[in-house]
């Protein structure tokens, strides 16, 4: 119990330290609006990719529809905060977005999660496209033009705190009774069933959980960028999140962080290259995959616990 407290405090200290660091950089003007934009994008991408990694890396279900659930969160915030332009309105909109995204994930997941591998991927992609096309045609979402002038109710600090919160919740979920059941489904469905694990249920839990976090990412995106259109949430958006997950290492949350930061930084640096930007980006993607097929970190995970244990071992050996 005490040891657990120690590790939890270590994580808390790390989160506070990074916050203070960013805040100080803001204060001293090291971070301009350009860099801040990059940091916020990285934060939102981490939220989105962590949720997708839970679905793909931990429950082993290949979903290509993450942007659909992100869209639900974004539009919930866009529509509600245009009417209630207060921070409370933002959080309300986020909760509404999460709820709708989770219901949508249930509706999509119950039938499709019976499918396997690429079939599931293509079905979830189809479902996300259906969500996007509906948004594209509804009046309340302003059709293909999208929503403008969404009140700016989100700062980098909001994104940072929510990024920390969703990551903590996701990681805690993975390291619980539920997370292990979810991983059992990934490892061997037949064996899991024979152990009394209701595979359909646990797949669905991971899928719905991931959809909920995607909605949080969408809400933050809408409130920070202030403009959203259905085209922002197409297949390419889902693929962009998938790239972060695979590049970092499927099944590694640490990897997701690293990949989101690397890609975010790369994107910012490449802004100077104009049209060559995407060519360099795609070449980098191909080369990283060829030389690091398991992603940057494989399934390695950073852990204060392991760190302190290996240090203890080292002192014993001395």
């Amino acid at each position: 119990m005490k040891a657990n407290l120690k590790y939890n405090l270590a994580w808390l200290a790390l989160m506070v330290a990074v916050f203070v660091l960013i805040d100080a950089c803001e204060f001293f003007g090291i971070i301009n609006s350009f860099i801040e934009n990059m940091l916020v994008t990285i934060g939102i991408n981490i939220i989105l990719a962590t949720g997708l990694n839970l679905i793909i890396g931990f429950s082993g279900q290949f979903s290509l529809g993450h942007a659909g659930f992100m869209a639900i969160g974004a539009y919930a915030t866009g529509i509600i905060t245009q009417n209630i332009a207060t921070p409370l309105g933002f959080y309300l909109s986020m909760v509404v977005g999460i709820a709708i995204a989770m219901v949508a994930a249930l509706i999509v997941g119950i039938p499709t999660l019976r499918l396997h591998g690429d079939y599931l991927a293509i079905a979830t992609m189809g479902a996300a496209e259906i969500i996007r096309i509906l948004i594209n045609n509804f009046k309340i979402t302003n059709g293909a033009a999208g929503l403008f002038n969404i009140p700016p109710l989100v700062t980098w600090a909001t994104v940072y705190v929510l990024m920390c919160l969703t990551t903590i919740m996701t990681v805690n979920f993975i390291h619980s009774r539920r997370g292990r059941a979810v991983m059992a489904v990934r490892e061997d469905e037949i064996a899991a069933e024979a152990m009394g694990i209701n595979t359909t249920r646990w797949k669905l839990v991971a899928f719905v959980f991931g959809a909920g976090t995607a909605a949080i990412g969408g809400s933050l995106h809408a409130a920070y960028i202030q403009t959203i259109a259905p085209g922002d949430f197409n297949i390419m958006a889902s693929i962009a999140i998938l790239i972060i997950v695979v590049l970092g290492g499927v099944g590694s949350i640490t990897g997701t962080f690293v990949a989101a930061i690397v890609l975010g930084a790369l994107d910012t640096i490449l802004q100077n290259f104009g049209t060559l930007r995407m060519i360099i980006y795609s070449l980098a993607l191909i080369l990283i995959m060829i030389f690091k097929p398991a992603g940057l970190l494989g399934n390695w995970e950073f852990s204060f616990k392991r760190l302190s244990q290996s240090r203890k071992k080292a002192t014993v050996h001395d």
Partner: protein
Amino acid sequence: MQTFGQQLINGLSLGSIYALLALGYTMVYGIIKLINFAHGDIYMLGAFWGYYVINGLHFNFILTLLSAMIFCAIIGVLIEYFAYRPLRNSPRITALITAIGVSFLLENGMTYLFSANARSFPQVLPTITYHVLGLRISNIQLIILGTACLLMILLELVIKQTKMGKAMRAVAVDPQAAQLVGINLNHTISFTFALGSAMAGAAGVLIGLYYNSIDPLMGMTPGIKAFVAAVIGGIGSVPGASLGGFLTGLLETGVQAIGLSAYKDAVVYFVLIVILLVLPAGIFGKKLKEKV
């Protein structure tokens, strides 16, 4: 009845393009279990090749079609050699991301070289519209349909009758066992990419003729739709891909005809999901159950 007939013809023309593209997806998937995301972009390259050889070298239709097929076959083989072969024993999701990377590279490379603007495809054949039983049928539509059907029959013959086709089928069933009986895996996979890419190249030229407009991003949406078509037909199955392609084309024009064009893609995806739920491996796909 008349509109129905008209939509049937439009749907079949569009469907044959999807079918040609779907064949490439299904063959590659069948043999190395990879969703070749760059396949739609090979189709775009085929269209651009057509554009340049018609304008620059004044090729006629047949020559354009054949040269585009050869050009795309070479590109397909090169992509497989450089991007996918090093990853053959890696996790499949890694190869998928690489394929997406190749797709981005082709799209952005072409945008960089030839600008993102759409350009009009030269009319190598004069358009003639026939009026039969009150239906408008253009010679372009007939050529598309005819060429597509001819290519599909040829493909079927190659797969069923030739030694290489037999090797392809063997590798699709069991790569290890195929190697044990002396089949060269690398050659077979290269050949599969060549065949699939040639089909895409032909589709690119045909779509250029049909829609008159080409641009570097033109492969994205049809590529995804053709993959959906391949899945509907049962991925890995050649007749399935043709059927899926025609079905998708007919469905799209049908939905458009009843005034729901804004929802045409949604309907296609909905049908896809329903088909997968009823037949989890598509119409002609084989369902493999794991043995305990």
